[in-house]
């Protein structure tokens, strides 16, 4: 097997953990900046920093209570008389930029809480050891249902209504819209005022339900059906049915199915042919993503990119196929993307960014780099954080 050894870690091949910790610590201090940030995804950045520090076994730099207060301050609180089925989602905002105070009656008129920020918020809380039972998860989970695209049958009724009350020339148009809508049944939009719907948000929903241990927030069967429709002819998964198969989308698909309990442990070892998804085809597609430079690409015939070492590597971890990767070659690629002052870039010779740095750290965790904590692949947080130890 191709495991990295101490000898290989010396010299130019070293993963410079300390420098990365410093890099993240710098990011951490810049996070809760006193001035109003233009950044819409503040919580996402915080997740990269805090989860990153945890993976690098350096969470001690983090003031956990302060982080908890900060994260909780982004929660969209339903007013005392709010109806959780009023169509709104009561999750977490991504930043102050999208957050507005409730009106004088305590009603949250401007609720821009977002599914992705909610995933990040819950993940951060879990990482810093916050007792999640203290969280108002009922509001989050119950209102999350408003984000899942409804049953096709509801739209059949609507279509009849539309046919009766719509001028003739718009009939065909509405029929197209209706058919088109059926594609997305089971999927999630990220925010109740409307947004694109695809596998990314199915994943966020599943991860949130899993971490809060409350699945009443989503119809797992409908979500599963949507995911299955996203498997492409080549075995990978696209973001929506018909879309090109893509490493990130494939991660969202497999991690979601795993979290929802539809994929058993070590599925590759079992000889049962019947499975929800075409596993052999997926496996072959996934493994072909490793290029001659050792790195992983997101789609066939594209260049390698650091982040796919996580998206693809995590899928293999979930399926039980980590050993099929040339880990030495992968490590070599990642090292070539390592920046001497900390962080990882997308490809060799470029400047690092927080996103690629985080996924570089997760990739090294999957490679079982010494000094790093092991990862819960399907949640994107350490196993430590996932089990709450």
């Amino acid at each position: 097997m191709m495991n990295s050894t101490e000898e290989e870690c010396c010299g130019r091949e070293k993963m410079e953990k300390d420098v990365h910790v410093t890099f993240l610590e710098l990011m951490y201090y810049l996070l809760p900046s006193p001035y109003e940030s233009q950044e819409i995804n503040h919580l996402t950045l915080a997740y990269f920093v805090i989860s990153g520090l945890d993976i690098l076994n350096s969470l001690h730099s983090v003031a956990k209570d302060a982080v908890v207060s900060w994260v909780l301050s982004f929660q969209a609180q339903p007013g005392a008389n709010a109806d959780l089925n009023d169509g709104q989602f009561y999750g977490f905002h991504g930043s102050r930029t999208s957050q507005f105070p409730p009106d004088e009656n305590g009603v949250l008129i401007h609720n821009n809480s977002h599914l992705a920020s909610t995933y990040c918020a819950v993940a951060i809380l879990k990482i810093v050891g916050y007792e999640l039972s203290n969280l108002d998860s009922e509001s989050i989970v119950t209102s999350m249902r408003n984000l899942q695209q409804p049953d096709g049958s509801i739209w059949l009724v609507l279509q009849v209504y539309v046919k009766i009350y719509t001028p003739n020339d718009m009939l065909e148009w509405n029929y197209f819209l209706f058919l088109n809508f059926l594609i997305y049944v089971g999927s999630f939009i990220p925010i109740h005022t409307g947004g694109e719907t695809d596998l990314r948000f199915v994943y966020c929903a599943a991860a949130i339900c899993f971490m809060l241990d409350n699945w009443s927030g989503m119809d797992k069967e409908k979500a599963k059906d949507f995911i299955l429709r996203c498997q492409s002819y080549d075995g990978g998964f696209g973001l929506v049915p018909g879309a090109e198969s893509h490493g990130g989308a494939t991660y969202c698909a497999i991690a979601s199915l795993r979290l929802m309990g539809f994929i058993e442990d070590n599925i590759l070892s079992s000889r049962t042919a019947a499975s929800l998804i075409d596993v052999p085809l997926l496996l072959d597609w996934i493994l072909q993503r490793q290029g001659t430079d050792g790195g992983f690409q997101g789609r066939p015939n594209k260049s390698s990119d650091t982040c796919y070492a996580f998206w693809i590597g995590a899928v293999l971890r979930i399926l039980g196929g980590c050993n099929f990767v040339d880990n030495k070659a992968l490590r070599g690629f990642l090292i070539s993307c390592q920046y001497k002052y900390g962080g990882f870039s997308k490809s060799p010779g470029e400047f690092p960014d927080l996103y690629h740095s985080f996924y570089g750290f997760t990739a090294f965790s999957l490679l079982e780099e010494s000094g790093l904590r092991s990862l819960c692949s399907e949640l994107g947080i350490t196993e430590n954080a996932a089990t709450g130890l």
Partner: protein
Amino acid sequence: MDYFRAVYVADERSPRALALTAEALQFNSGNYTVWHFRRLILESLKIDLHSELGFVERMAAGNSKNYQMWHHRRWVAEKLGPEARNIELDFTKKILSIDAKHYHAWSHRQWVLQALGGWENELNYCTELLEVDIFNNSAWNQRYFVITRSPFLGGLKAMRESEVLYTIEAIEGYPENESSWRYLRGLYKGETASWVNDPQVSSVCLKILRTKTNYVFALSTILDLICSGYQPMEDIRDAIVALKTTDMDKQNNDDDEIGDQQNLNIARSICSILEQVDPIRINYWIWRKSRLLPST
């Protein structure tokens, strides 16, 4: 942003507010709150949405990889209805002419075709793109999308014959192109027996094997076929044996065995060869070999 927040909280739906959203989006095109409010204003003021298409196009020139912007574009197109069809196809074509693998553009284009139509020229468009770059996986995917969903083409089965010919030509030109091999297999989706029994499939594999170059996908295809019940004839078996190097396990002399054992031996040989010629996946091929059963 302070000005934006003020009009947003006041729910001011005015031209001034609209201009403010444009400004706010210059600073952060990912701000979904601003995009949503902009939509509310556009509706209230009953703004001509054709000009809004122009607004999005100008934004795309700055940064076209932005989910919120593309969602907004879709919202506008949905409102305009069928008249937006050609505009949207042209718009995505423009983006794709700069980046032929632009994921958002392809997603939007697929939505346009399904919601607004315009399928008539899409297969030709894919062919054009593949002529420029036969390795463009997005174009191959779009091809599959068209042949399976176009209301004018009759579906996968009806299109299979012509598409197999097209794909085989592509494979013969560049046998190292993963996209064409995956597409070929995809043409038989849900009908493994048709895939196994179609002589054109094994035939193209044999052709590539005989060239003794870029034969990795040809080999793995034969392997997958055998695992689905295919029984390779002598010419294929000979071509595979010819690729074995002297250090490979030659104990299983294929000619001595028949039937299932023969198929098993040749499958094992394929795995052995792949372990050598596709070393980055050596552990996978070792595992594939270990999974082979006589009745494979």
